[in-house]
């Protein structure tokens, strides 16, 4: 169809518009002539109309949170226009959370970086223009290699660090360990997890042996107890949580939900019960619930075990001896004797009564017999006698039968368990340390005590404990609301213990288990074969810049929040060069402005495709492809336990001169002098790695028919159900191909299901016993108390008189939507945040400070200050203010940086850098602030 005057219906409206008569039309100035009407469709579109549109659907997985939901990407003539959840994908099942639909906005973000660049303005600052100039990839990679080779020559290769955030797996962050070992730096993958949710992984590691997030069986769960997790906003996997919510709330029986949080979010609103706890006090609630479960005899005896004599000795305040003493045995014998005596007395009484009845009946019969002798023809008398005699005979027969049955029962009766001096008072089955825990901590943690600490009434605590323990199956879960505090791990231990006490560990409908691994094939090449003497030298064994696994943080996995301040202090040393991937602590790290000082001193390489805060401080930009342009694989976020892996296939060729991060690492590797470059030349690129790994599918095909690289790309996902293990009524079973039929031995359970040092669920944590000195140093707890879930008074960072919480919302989980106005427009729906995000403040707190709804306020403490608009609301505690951790960017693009939007800065400008000592988790939710009207 040609673009003539008559090719489109010419409405009166558009006619007027074209002639410039209508107000608001695009053209100004002189009236154009009738014959210069702008065509309705532009040139590109008419080519499409002629050819006929061809829509291609490619597979990928979402990038907006770690859940990795499978997506179908719709591209027509090279233009990506839609993303929906993949239908035959066990995570997305055809659905998505709101974030899944941002993909095309991120691909076509007008502020995206268009190619590698180098900084020409040596000054670095928030308001300094870096004056980047575009360079070629060759030049960019040579700059990096030049620096890395120079460091190596000086023996200072440890001063090169790679900081990582949302890594996906083998073909991005998974490449870094080899790189680090070949190159010679311990700082090869400084992860963000300490600024994420490390405490929950640490708790699980301590108690059930898995340093990981748990897999849950929500569709079969009948009671869900949530501590400090946005189950319907950000807890992962969010999309699956919502799918399961629909099932849980409409199945028979309906899953009952109790939520513990510090303000009314959608999760709390949708629940059946909300406990608005004082921040950092979740552990007190859990301890009191455990106390109730034990004192009321509600624990699961199949899983936990029982008192040898079946008598519940859990009484508030009373210590329990571990073993029976002579007194215990004497008391038991006495009790038995008394019971026997009572029984004998009762039996005697009953026998006497019976004898009396028998005698009476016999007397009646005898009397009748006499009467009959006197009148032998009386039929009525004869009949009466016959009836009575029959009755007597029946009674005798019945008595004999009962005696016989009783004898049989007595024969089969097991003797009552008899306490023996020195024997265990409590036979613990799959837990270890219960009695000790009770004695050391739990015996005094009553609901009344918890009420004082947490602000939740004892009545409610008792009710929830009873509901949780008597509704099977049940799940108790927690995340940062409970754990991003200085007492976060001990809080988490108390909460996680609830699952063990009620026998829901590894159970159907309970905390189902942990993620099984995918059968990837190994690479045909080993990087160890390419390590030169420099790499192998013991000189390379230096501490990491984040001081993980040193005396300072012996149990932490990562300590990203420490990197800037360690560098600034030169302890353990100063960094020279840092490469940043998918993370931006200069905005998202606690006390974030410290990073600005650190980055001024370091050669910073940013790989983000967007001009974020790190970008402003970077010396070199090596922009990544966005995920719709990438080929990439990953393993699933813990979901239901059975192994799942997924693949991204590019929907379009890169629209700019960008390169996938994994390939950049390989390219850098090729330029490092020595055998390392030979290794990377052999590897080639990430596509090779993926192809090699997919060979593993041949022997372990996916349930959906995926057997190789090609079928993997077609389907987007590989998985094999079911999860291999099941705990039922205190017995562990393994899947045998047909069912959970193989009973597992204790040893097998230890190796495959609960790999703790004891092979049991540790209520007394062995690893904490080993680190009791560290615990004493950091918490001031005597060593003998260290291993137990317990109440620790939280320390609060910052200063001020209000608790400050910065949660996530359904529209953003990790930092990738701040430059998307589609997201801004729906981000904080409960408070009406469509342009700014508002600070939730209770009317009492507001009135005290002369603050009215909509007022601009200043949130400040010793760390810093930001300004924001107040939303006076009934949804938060009077002592707690809430500001989602989403906006306040000063970079990231034209919408993120818009001056007319509030808040004026990151929530991290008022968050003290305080960490939970065991996991290293940054205590984002522990801080205190002041709020003043501006």
């Amino acid at each position, binding site marked *: 169809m040609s673009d003539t005057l008559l090719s489109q219906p010419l409405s009166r409206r558009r006619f007027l518009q074209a002639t410039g008569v209508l107000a608001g*039309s695009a053209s100004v100035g002189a009236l154009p002539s009738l014959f210069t009407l702008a065509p309705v469709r532009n040139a590109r579109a008419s080519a*499409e109309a002629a050819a006929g549109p061809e829509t291609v659907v490619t597979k990928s997985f979402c990038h907006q949170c770690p859940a990795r939901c499978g997506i179908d990407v719709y591209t027509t003539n090279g233009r990506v226009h839609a993303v929906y959840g993949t*239908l035959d994908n066990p995570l997305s099942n*055809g*659905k998505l959370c*709101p974030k899944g639909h941002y993909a095309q906005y991120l691909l076509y973000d007008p502020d995206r970086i268009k190619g590698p660049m180098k900084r020409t303005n040596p000054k670095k600052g928030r308001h300094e223009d870096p004056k980047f100039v575009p360079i070629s990839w060759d030049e960019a990679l040579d700059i990096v290699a030049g620096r890395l080779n120079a460091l190596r020559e000086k023996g200072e290769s440890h001063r090169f660090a790679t900081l990582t955030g949302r890594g996906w797996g083998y073909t991005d962050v998974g490449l870094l360990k080899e790189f680090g070992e070949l190159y010679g730096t311990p700082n090869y993958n400084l992860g963000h997890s300490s600024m994420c949710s490390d405490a929950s992984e640490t708790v699980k590691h301590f108690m059930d042996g898995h340093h990981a997030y748990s897999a849950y069986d929500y569709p079969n769960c009948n009671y869900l107890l949530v501590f400090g997790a946005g189950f319907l906003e950000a807890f992962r996997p969010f999309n*699956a949580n919502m799918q399961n919510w629909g099932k849980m709330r409409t199945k028979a029986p309906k899953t009952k939900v109790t939520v513990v949080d510090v303000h009314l979010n959608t999760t709390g609103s949708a629940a059946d019960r909300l406990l608005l706890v004082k921040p950092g006090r979740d552990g007190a609630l859990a301890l009191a619930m455990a106390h109730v479960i034990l004192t009321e005899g509600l624990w699961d005896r199949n899983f936990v075990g029982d008192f040898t004599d079946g008598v519940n000795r859990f009484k508030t305040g009373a210590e329990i001896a571990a073993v029976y003493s002579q007194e215990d045995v004497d008391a038991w014998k006495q009790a038995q004797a008394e019971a026997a005596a009572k029984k004998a007395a009762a039996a005697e009484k009953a026998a006497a009564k019976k004898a009396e009845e028998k005698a009476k009946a016999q007397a009646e019969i005898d009397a009748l017999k006499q009467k009959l002798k006197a009148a032998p023809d009386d039929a009525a008398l004869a009949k009466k006698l016959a009836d009575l005699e029959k009755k007597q005979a029946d009674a005798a027969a019945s008595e004999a039968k009962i005696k016989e049955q009783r004898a049989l029962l007595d024969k089969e009766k097991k003797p009552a368990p008899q306490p023996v001096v020195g024997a265990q008072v409590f036979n613990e089955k799959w837990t270890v340390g219960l009695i000790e825990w009770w004695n050391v901590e739990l015996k005094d943690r009553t609901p009344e005590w918890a009420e004082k600490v947490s602000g939740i009434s004892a009545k409610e605590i008792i009710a929830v404990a009873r509901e949780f323990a008597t509704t099977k199956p049940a799940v108790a879960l927690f995340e940062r609301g409970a754990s991003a505090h200085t007492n976060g791990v001990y809080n988490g231990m108390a909460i996680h213990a609830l699952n063990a006490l009620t026998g829901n560990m590894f159970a159907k409908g309970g905390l189902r288990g942990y993620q099984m691994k995918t059968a990837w094939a190994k690479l045909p090449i080993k990087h160890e074969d390419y390590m030169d003497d420099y790499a192998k030298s013991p000189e390379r064994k230096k501490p990491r810049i984040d001081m993980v696994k040193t005396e300072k943080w012996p149990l932490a996995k990562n300590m990203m929040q420490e990197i800037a301040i360690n560098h600034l202090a030169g302890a353990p040393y100063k960094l020279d060069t840092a490469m940043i991937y998918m993370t931006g602590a200069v905005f998202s790290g606690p006390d974030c402005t410290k990073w600005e000082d650190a980055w001024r001193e370091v050669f910073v390489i940013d790989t983000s495709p967007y001009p974020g805060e790190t970008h402003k401080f970077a010396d070199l930009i090596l922009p990544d492809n966005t995920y719709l342009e990438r080929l990439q694989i990953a393993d699933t976020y813990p979901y239901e336990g059975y192994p799942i892996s997924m693949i991204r296939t590019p929907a379009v060729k890169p629209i700019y001169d960008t390169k996938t991060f994994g390939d950049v690492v390989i390219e850098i590797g090729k330029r490092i002098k020595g055998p390392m470059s030979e290794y990377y030349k052999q590897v080639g690129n990430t596509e090779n790695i993926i192809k090699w790994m997919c060979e593993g599918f041949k022997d372990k095909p996916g349930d959906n028919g995926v057997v190789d690289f090609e079928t993997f790309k077609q389907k987007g996902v590989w998985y094999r159900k079911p999860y291999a293990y099941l705990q039922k009524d205190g017995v562990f079973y393994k899947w045998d191909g047909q069912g959970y039929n193989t009973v597992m031995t204790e040893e097998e359970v230890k190796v495959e299901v609960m790999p703790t040092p004891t092979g049991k669920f540790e209520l007394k944590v062995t690893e904490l016993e080993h680190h009791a000195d560290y615990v004493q140093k950091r918490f001031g707890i005597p060593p003998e108390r260290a291993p137990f879930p317990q109440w620790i008074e939280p320390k609060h960072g910052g200063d001020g008189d209000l608790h400050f919480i910065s949660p996530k919302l359904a529209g953003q989980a990790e930092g990738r939507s701040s430059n998307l106005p589609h997201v801004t*427009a729906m981000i904080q729906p409960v408070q009406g945040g469509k342009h700014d995000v508002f600070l939730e403040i209770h009317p009492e707190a507001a009135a005290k400070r002369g603050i009215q709804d909509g007022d601009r306020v200043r949130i400040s403490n010793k760390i810093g200050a930001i300004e924001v608009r107040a939303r006076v609301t009934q949804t938060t505690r009077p002592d707690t203010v809430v500001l989602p951790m989403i906006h306040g960017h000063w970079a990231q693009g034209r919408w993120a940086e818009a001056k007319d*939007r509030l808040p004026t800065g990151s929530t991290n400008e008022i968050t003290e850098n305080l960490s939970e000592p065991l996991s290293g988790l940054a205590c984002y939710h522990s801080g205190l602030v002041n709020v003043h009207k501006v």
Partner: protein
Amino acid sequence: MPKWGMVIDLEKCVGCQACTVACGMENNRLPGEHWQDVIFFTEGEYPNTQTKWFPRPCMHCENPSCVAVCPTRATYKTEEGFVLVDWNRCIGCKYCMIACPYGVRFYTEEKAAYGGPNMKEVFPADDSHSWNPPWKMPDAREDWKHGVGVQPHDVVSKCTFCHHRVTKAPPGTADLDPQDPKTREFTPACVVTCAPGARFFGDLSNPDSQVNKLIANKNGVRLLDHLGNKPQVYYLTGEGGSVPSGRALKKS
């Protein structure tokens, strides 16, 4: 002739707004142009506050106020139950926006509320489209007569029940189930994406359709029913539907 209708189960809806975002994506909406929106409101006092929400598409009323007032007959009701806007006829008088009791309509020249530069100016069109987003739907799908696609300047737009998808369904289809590969591509975007499975779309004139069964079995009610517009969107309220609440203090 089908009479297309929607059912939304409020017992399952979690207020995530995936429906709002999916609609915006499928229909090339501007930020904030929430043809499908989720309305939140708060009731009560701390610590017994309650936050509630419900998704609000266009109701595609049997008796639409908007059609009654449109001076150019740009807005109209089809035989299959859709209420649509013809962008070739619409003169942007906004009478329909005043008349609609549900507030489902949007005007192109409204001031951008999201802060920062106006997206229309960042992605301008060089023809009479009001803007030209790089993620625009395939051109062949655009359909101004039925209010589908990127609209021109100075017109009103609203939810079309994904007319461009639904009308491709084979005649006689009782329900559009996004979990059924045969009907998924015809199902409205908001229904496709809803993770808890709170949304349903089907033929209200078919007594065997699932939408009708849901309305009957689970207490389906219509919003502002006393106004007489007879919406074709029904809400399942489960046990909570029988008593209307007047306690709402503030609408977001």
